[in-house]
């Protein structure tokens, strides 16, 4: 699972059947390598924590642009959250109110 921020939605009329009626959001994962102890992450946190990469996920919860979400990646998660015939492995499984880095992520690195 990854903590990500929703940066936009994507739509298209030509899509595989497994995506019909599904909301597709573009998210960017948070990188916590530089986060100090006590950093609070929420919908209002600055973009400095976002990593360059972006990925697309099916969103059954209806997250808004800017919100922090938990994205699960894998077919088991997909089967439970969106159904077994959905054509992706990435699903939004929670809309995060707030996340706190308790210990400086820097020190936790191996």
């Amino acid at each position, binding site marked *: 699972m990854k903590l990500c921020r929703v*940066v*936009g*939605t*994507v*739509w*298209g*009329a*030509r*899509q*595989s*059947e*497994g*995506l019909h009626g599904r909301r*597709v959001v*573009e998210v960017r994962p948070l990188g916590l390598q530089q986060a100090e102890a006590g950093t609070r992450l929420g919908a209002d946190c600055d973009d400095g924590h976002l990593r*360059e*990469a*972006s*990925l*697309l*996920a099916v969103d059954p919860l209806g997250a808004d*642009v800017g919100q922090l979400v938990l994205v699960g990646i894998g*077919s088991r998660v*997909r089967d439970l959250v969106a159904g*077994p*015939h*959905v*054509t*992706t*492995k*990435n699903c939004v499984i929670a809309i995060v109110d707030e996340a706190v880095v308790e210990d400086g992520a820097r020190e936790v690195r191996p």
Partner: protein
Amino acid sequence: MIRGRVIGEVWATRKAPRLAAKKLLLVAEMRVSPDGEHATGRVVVATDTLDAGQGDTVVVAFGSGARNAEAPGSRDVLVDASVVQVVDGSTSPGSP
């Protein structure tokens, strides 16, 4: 899933029997940022059932999601990347 752009097509006659797909596309991964769209340099071969064409922005799914696009619920299809949507629009900053 990733965002990509169709940059080419691959032709093959000799295929593994379980590779049922008829059309193979070359898709370059794209990243959008507020200053525009640019390629990340990663290029994948994806099967296509939606008849995506030259220059189309598409969504590519991997793994079991890609197999679901070819045959829902299947496990024995020899596909690990597939075009699942031809993008009409997007609200992500920087996307065309």
